């Protein structure tokens, strides 16, 4: 160690740290401001919310009480809408997992004839922007007589979620060694037994990631939900949030409170499964 160098080095380090902070602070503010603004409205009485204060004079949970007791015109179906969102998200997750796991097993492990073509078709669907498919999908659901029925949204979201699910699960199952299947066949296992006893347990991490992906996709969906469902007791929470804007004097503090409640579950799920999400999804999203 040369002593004259020490001081110079630490100055340089301070400079680097300062420059990093110069990036980090704007990044923090940029990320947090819209979310903090939502939170601020949720804990502010109406007068404080509209006064532009950074912290309300009298922070309160009153808005949450109004939402949970459904004490406002816009909130009279809050619980049923929350329930609709939950049922639809869980159904989409389960159905997508079922369809995609079966398809990925079929294409990757059973080498079904034409599997490659199906995978390419799925990939093609994945790349077509969902908003473009929304218009014909709306008409199709009308033809099938499913408009205003939860099944329309469930099936539409399964259609959108499965291509990516199949693709990621197919990549993951390609990595499992062939010898596993061969050994199981030698032991006299049937195809279904291999699927249940060998394949599913080994695929667990990817299945968790894909299930979470599909549930979040369905929970967060606005466009399809607002096209396919319109009845107040059938719609999901995001559509109900959008409907707040119909009035000129919307109760924004209640809108933000409901939005905050609506945003909590997906954020919690995301952070709980972050380990799986990052590994499973970023590897799948872009293969370089």
């Amino acid at each position, binding site marked *: 160690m040369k002593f004259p160098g020490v001081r110079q080095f630490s100055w340089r380090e301070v400079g680097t740290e300062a420059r*990093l902070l110069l990036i980090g602070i704007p990044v923090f503010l940029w990320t947090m401001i819209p979310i903090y603004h939502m939170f601020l409205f949720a804990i502010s009485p109406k007068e404080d919310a509209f006064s532009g204060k950074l912290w309300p004079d009298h922070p309160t949970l009153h808005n949450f009480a109004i939402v949970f007791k459904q004490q406002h015109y816009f909130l009279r179906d809050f619980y049923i809408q929350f329930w609709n969102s939950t049922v639809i998200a869980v159904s989409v997750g389960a159905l997508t997992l079922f369809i995609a796991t079966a398809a990925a097993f*079929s294409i990757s492990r059973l080498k079904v004839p034409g599997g490659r073509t199906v995978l390419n078709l799925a990939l093609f669907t994945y790349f077509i*922007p969902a908003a473009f498919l929304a218009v014909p999908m709306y008409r199709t659901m009308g033809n099938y007589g499913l408009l205003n029925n939860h099944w329309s949204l469930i099936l539409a979201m399964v259609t959108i979620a499965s291509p990516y699910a199949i693709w990621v699960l197919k990549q993951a199952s390609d990595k499992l060694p062939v010898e596993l299947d061969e050994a199981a066949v030698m032991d006299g296992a049937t195809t279904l037994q291999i699927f249940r006893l060998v394949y599913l347990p080994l695929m667990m991490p990817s299945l968790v990631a894909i299930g979470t992906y599909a549930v979040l996709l369905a929970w967060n969906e606005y466009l399809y939900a607002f096209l396919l469902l319109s009845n107040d007791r059938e719609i999901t929470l995001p559509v109900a949030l959008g409907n707040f804007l119909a009035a000129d004097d919307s109760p924004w503090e209640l809108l933000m409170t409901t939005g905050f409640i609506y945003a909590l579950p997906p954020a919690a799920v995301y952070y709980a499964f972050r380990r799986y999400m990052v590994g499973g999804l970023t590897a799948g*999203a872009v293969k370089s």
Partner: protein
Amino acid sequence: MAITLSGDQAIPGPPLSSRLTPAQVWGIILLAPYLLVFLAFVVYPVCYGLWLARAPSNYVALYNDPIFARAAVNTLIFLVIGINIKMLIALFLSGFFAQQRTWIKWLSVIFILPWAVPSIPTILSVRFMLNPEWGMINHYIFSLTGDDGPNWLNDPTVALTMAIAVHIWKSLPFWTLILITGRLAISHDLFEAAEVDGASWWQKFRYITWPSMQTLYVTCTLLSMIWTLGDFNSVYLLTGGGPADLTHVLATLGIRYLRLDQLSLAMASIVCAMPFVLPLVYFMMKRLSR
């Protein structure tokens, strides 16, 4: 069995079973659910939509609709300017987040929030911040300068810029995360060697980081462009296409025609976007299905 096969090859009947192994029969059965979904909710809607949009008069009507031209231009601005700015920031931030610091680790956890929370409440939150009378931003402009702030969402240029900003806010974390994985995959030895040779940070970026990341970066940019074509929420929930339908993009325009009960126009506007979408999709499929 020399029986000619008709269209129902997917059903394992007696003529086929002698040629297919049990595993292949199961393969077809397990693939069937997805094929059904695909036929019922992708093939049928797309064919039906194309059939609805078949009349040339639709395209004449679109050509004569100034809102369509405006939406096409807005979409191009959104893609060419918005996405490139977003990806450049993501590339820059991926370098920032690759730094080994505890506080940067924590910041990266917070940084993911916009991606983790649903876009509807946050976009509406931004919408209220931009409210000219009651919004936070104009409130501070007034208390700092004594002047009334601009009527943000009433100016089409500003409103579109804000929609792009909202889009960037929402999807920046995702792309940064992917670029970080790309950056961390670069061998550390290269940087150490460059350090020994006294390379500047720009030289390190130019000769080590960029060459290893450019394919990933271009793929991400193209993918983001395709997906952004379908970004309905950022525009619809912030501006609603207004003022005077001047901030529509193709994704919201299709829905606008649909709401006006002009389904064939809605489909035609989507068909018009296809010459741009399909080459990008083809390129992406080539890249990803190797």
